[in-house]
């Protein structure tokens, strides 16, 4: 699968909500409004706010027509397992009505939409390790199809006891606990509002093997490949992988100065560092390519 770039799109905001020096989950996940949210929704809401803030789009009128695109594989596994444990013990009467929405994989995306009045398409993908890069490509598709003015892409995975057990049984020793957000918007729109373009989305490909995916993305000549770096830093990233890769690529494109044209190729999926049965997605990001004619 490869998409002709009918509308040039760019990343204009990045928001990290991954525990570390800049993100203390003890306080960040306990702010007002979080009480009845599950862990993945809390992470998503924090990453969303940071990414929109970074893009200068918090409270912006164009959010009304913006899409939310989430990639997450294990978000509702915790709530689902909690519910069956409660049902086994106390019957359905013991379950919490406030937690019923979190049985759906789509819960985090709808909380984010509600938090920012984002009334465009509300898409959640649970496609395995390729899902994060897929999400960026679907965001671009939704914009190109005239369905969204902009899109907030969020990759997230929560660490809950069922998630930990599943990873351990599959040979994992570490896994991410957090979310990363990206704002994707048309280059023209970003230029018109004077936003800083962090990277342009140059190509995307999806295939059963890495070489074909990279070719479809137009990335065969790109020397810098980002694959398992997020896993080395955070453990298995699963549905968040591609989004973390893009956030790291943006930082790299901004940090490395030089006369040569640069680009970063991100590759995620089976056969790369996370073999989870998914196919392979490849995405090429470049520095800003100038104002559209």
């Amino acid at each position: 699968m490869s998409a002709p770039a009918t509308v040039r799109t760019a990343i204009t905001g990045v928001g990290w909500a991954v525990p570390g020096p800049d993100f203390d989950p003890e306080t960040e996940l306990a702010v007002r409004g979080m009480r009845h949210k599950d862990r993945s929704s809390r992470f998503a809401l924090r990453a969303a706010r940071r990414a929109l803030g970074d893009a200068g789009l918090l409270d912006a009128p164009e959010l009304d027509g913006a899409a939310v695109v989430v990639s997450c594989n294990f978000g509702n596994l915790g709530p689902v397992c909690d519910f069956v444990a409660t049902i086994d013990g106390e019957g359905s009467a013991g379950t919490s009505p406030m937690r019923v929405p979190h049985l759906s994989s789509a819960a985090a995306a709808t909380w984010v939409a509600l938090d920012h009045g984002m009334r465009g398409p509300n898409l959640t993908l649970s496609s395995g390790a390729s899902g994060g890069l897929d999400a960026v490509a679907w965001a671009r598709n939704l914009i190109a199809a005239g369905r969204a003015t902009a899109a907030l892409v969020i990759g997230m995975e929560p660490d809950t006891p069922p998630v930990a057990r599943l990873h351990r049984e599959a040979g994992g020793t570490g896994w991410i606990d957090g979310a990363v957000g990206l704002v994707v918007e048309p280059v023209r729109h970003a230029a018109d509002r004077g936003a800083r373009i962090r990277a342009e989305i140059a190509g995307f490909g999806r295939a059963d093997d890495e070489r074909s995916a990279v070719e479809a993305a137009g990335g065969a000549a790109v020397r810098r490949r980002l694959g398992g770096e997020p896993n080395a830093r955070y453990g298995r990233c699963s549905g968040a992988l591609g989004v973390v890769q893009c956030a790291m690529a943006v930082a790299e494109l901004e940090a490395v100065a030089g006369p040569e044209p640069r680009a970063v190729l991100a590759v995620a999926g089976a056969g790369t560092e996370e073999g989870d049965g998914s196919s392979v997605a490849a995405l090429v990001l470049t520095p800003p390519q100038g104002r559209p004619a």
Partner: protein
Amino acid sequence: MSWDLVGMSAICALGDTVPAIHAALCSGRSGLAPLSAFDSSRYRAGAAYEVPDRARPGVDEPLRATRWLVRVVREALAEAGLPEPEPRTPVLVGTTHREMRTAELWWRREAPLSPADLHFTPALRSALGLHNVHTVTSACAASLYGLGMATDLIASGEADTVVVAGTDSITESSFGGFDRIQPRPPDTIRAFDRSRRGMIMGEGAAAVVLRRAGADPGRVRGRVRGVGMNCDAAHATAPDPAGIVRAIEEAHERASLAPGDIDLVVVHGSGTSQSDLAEAVALEQVFKAADPGPLVTAVKGGTGHVSGGAGLLNLVVALESIRSRTLPPISGLADPIEEAGHLRLVSGRPATGPFGTAQVHAVGMGGINAVAIVEGAAR
């Protein structure tokens, strides 16, 4: 622009072919039956719309949603004349629960689970060689979201053929959660009826093959004219009529149609107090100037709420209704709510056609809406 629908298949409590499901709905049959595998002592409700395919009574099996998905995708491709599809053909699978039922069994140590079981790529690759699979989990609007995304892939030139599917098996967590939040267990689903008491879960799968218009004219079963998709962003659980109205209007705009062009509507009609109300208010608003306005029906009284595949199941029933000129009635509807007073609700017995153009709804939890406009094969 339109897209050709060249193959379709479905399975649910009422049957395992589209004509069988449609005929059962027209005859007023219900797929509701006593719980067959869950421990009914744990719930107030004792019935659901299950697919009766477990090998041993009372013993659950993992990966049923995956099994149905593979089956309906294979059948839809066979009907489309594509039994050995191009491996990179996109497959967009809409699902609310994925294999969370298998995860529940795993959590109790009654079945194995691997991360790859939670998306549908490995199963479709091994059964049909298809690897370009996307698991769309946008709640109960998921399969119509997949349809909208498929139209975009074809419109942009990215693909000529896309398979769109939906699948879900009933999970104990959601069955228990809805058992907890509904005031008392509904005896059946009565969409738009004053006495409605809520939603009852169903299960099953549906698939359609969508192709660029004119790709294989001999096999056209119907056409997709346009899909609208959005989010209310208004309330955590209660649907907002304004969001549904926007989704309908977007679908009409993409289809280049006016409200008066719609012959029939298959609503989401989950039978819950708020969702039915929101849909009725939205329909009244959109069709207030249409005379006489479309016929309106719902299938969930017969099929149950099949979750992620619900929108696509509505769609194949709509196309079969157009083909057979017979639109099934809303099961259990005797006394319509006031807000639906001006709608031409089909009740009691099927309505007869001809019908040309149908509007199909999916309203998901969290305010996720999708509306598709489809028409019959004959123009």
